[in-house]
């Protein structure tokens, strides 16, 4: 069996599972946020149960429209807060919350070998620590909160092997945008993606989170990495309980094995309105922008901010460009403060925000007007994603987003860091 199959088999009390089989999987963590929890709470109440299956295995995070952007959003956050209090569930509120998919790994709430489900499509992020993690809807989450298990179809796995060495300014974001560019937004539809190869071994944990995060953008059910020394080092100080490490067998079966040589890959930019429109940054041709957003569950970790700071330490944000930087969690914010990154950003003319998903989904903290263009380290550039349906979003890594903020047009970091 491969990694995904082994984890799922262990969670449904079977020795073997195969792609296409329906199973009832035991879940180790159930997540929802301020947009998806209200429906989950209503459906949970419809189930008529008096308690949740295990309050230590449920987390709610207010991160999308908080700090509350309007009265309706405030009502949604309030409903979550009250439900969590009633059932003794851990609620991450303003002041301690972060963007869920940056927060949960950081807090040691998702571990290798876990099955994690979340009412948020980017729940697949936790594949970076060797968990089987997948997004579902609110009703699924309601049922899992009551019963501790959920139905799943065992997915086929596609193995992606990345050979070679990553160039300067090239990281997890570029690998995943490049991959989606190659296979399309349904290239891994219903499948688990397993990321391997020597370029992956060299990739930092933050880079791996970025890649796993965007598995959904290829239609993937999960995006998994094998546990290695880097994972162990990351997990060791955070884990609140023991965990099991699973490995793919040598004779594991895959729906497909796709190999890339990444040595010559440039930083990638995905043009509107699909993450699959990925192009090397030098081929994009200096498109003028109005805004640059650096943050999100894709690229809101400390390493992302360090990359942006490397560029903004020596340069100012271009006149007329709004550069908005959002540390992913309170801890990332504190680390960035301690390292002097926040001062760098503010002095360069960027706006630094408390953690929130905000602008990524056109919620608040950087919504776009008609005709505006934004380069963003987020994960989706669909029509209307960050505001007006007549605005445009270009996806890129934090170094490209920072360099573009400096020049006012989409720019290779080398151009400003000569």
């Amino acid at each position: 069996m491969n990694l995904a199959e082994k984890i799922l088999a262990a969670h449904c009390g079977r020795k073997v599972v195969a792609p296409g089989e329906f199973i009832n999987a035991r879940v180790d963590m159930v997540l929802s946020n301020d947009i998806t929890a209200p429906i989950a709470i209503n459906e949970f109440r419809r189930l008529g149960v008096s308690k949740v299956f295990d309050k230590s295995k449920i987390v709610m995070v207010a991160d999308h429209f908080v700090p509350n952007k309007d009265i309706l959003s405030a009502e949604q956050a309030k409903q979550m807060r009250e439900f969590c209090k009633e059932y003794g569930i851990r609620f991450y509120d303003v002041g301690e919350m972060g963007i869920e998919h940056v927060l949960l790994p950081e807090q040691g709430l998702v571990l290798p070998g876990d099955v994690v489900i979340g009412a948020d499509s980017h729940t697949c992020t936790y594949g970076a620590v060797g968990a089987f993690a997948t997004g579902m809807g609110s009703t699924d989450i309601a049922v899992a909160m009551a019963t501790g298990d959920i139905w799943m179809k065992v997915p086929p796995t596609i193995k992606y092997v990345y050979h070679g060495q990553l160039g300067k300014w090239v990281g997890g974001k570029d690998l995943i945008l490049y991959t989606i560019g190659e296979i399309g937004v349904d290239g891994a539809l219903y499948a688990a993606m397993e990321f391997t190869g020597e370029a992956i071994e060299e990739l930092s944990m933050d880079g791996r989170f970025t890649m796993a995060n965007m598995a959904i953008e290829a239609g993937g059910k999960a995006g998994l990495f094998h546990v290695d020394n880097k994972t162990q080092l990351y997990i060791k100080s955070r884990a609140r309980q023991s965990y099991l490490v699973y490995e793919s067998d040598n004779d594991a079966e895959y729906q497909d094995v796709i190999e890339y040589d990444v040595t010559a890959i440039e930083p990638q930019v995905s043009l509107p309105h699909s993450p699959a429109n990925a192009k090397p940054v030098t081929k994009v041709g200096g498109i003028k922008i109005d805004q640059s957003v650096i943050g999100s569950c894709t690229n809101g970790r400390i390493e992302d901010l360090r990359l942006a700071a490397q560029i903004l330490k020596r340069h100012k944000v271009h006149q007329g460009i709004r550069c908005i930087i959002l540390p992913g969690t309170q801890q990332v914010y504190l680390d960035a403060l301690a390292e002097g990154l926040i001062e760098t950003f503010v002095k360069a003319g960027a706006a630094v925000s408390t953690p929130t998903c905000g602008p990524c989904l056109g919620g608040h903290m950087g919504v776009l007007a008609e005709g505006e263009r934004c380069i963003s380290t987020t994960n989706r550039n669909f029509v209307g994603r960050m505001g007006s349906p007549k605005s445009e979003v270009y996806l890129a890594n934090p170094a490209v987003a920072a360099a573009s903020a400096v020049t006012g047009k989409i720019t290779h970091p080398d151009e400003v860091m000569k």
Partner: protein
Amino acid sequence: MKLKGKVFKYGANVDTDAIIPARYLNTSAPAELAKHCMEDIDATFVKKVKPGDIIVATSNFGCGSSREHAPLAIKASGVSCVIAYSFARIFFRNAINIGLPLLECAEAVDNIKTGDALEVDLVKGTIKNITKNKIFTAKPYPDFMSELITAGGLVAYTKKRLAQAKA
């Protein structure tokens, strides 16, 4: 059960931001969501859609976010079912869970145009294009999915399961 309505046809990769933009997700009230269904890719949809109408699309319908608001908005707008080449995974779960019927049938999709009148028989899995007088058969659901649909969605299914566990 037979469903009858006129077709709204779209292409590939209709994402959940297109079905219901995130700026309206500060509520989960289906009637409110329905007011903005398909707004960013088809501003006239809400004005034109009538109860029973059917959305038809090509591949990967409902890709993107996990928002259950997407099938809720479609259902509350009056749409009776969605027919496509394929559906994104989370959207598929959500639609089944809330009782919005989905059918996968590439042949039907290729033979249906916006404005065509359809009659869909959910029990037989047949899609009749009344305008063109052609009949197609959708891919059958796996047994487990049929069980879920027959039970009336995931909450009803789970309630039954919990009651059996108690007995």
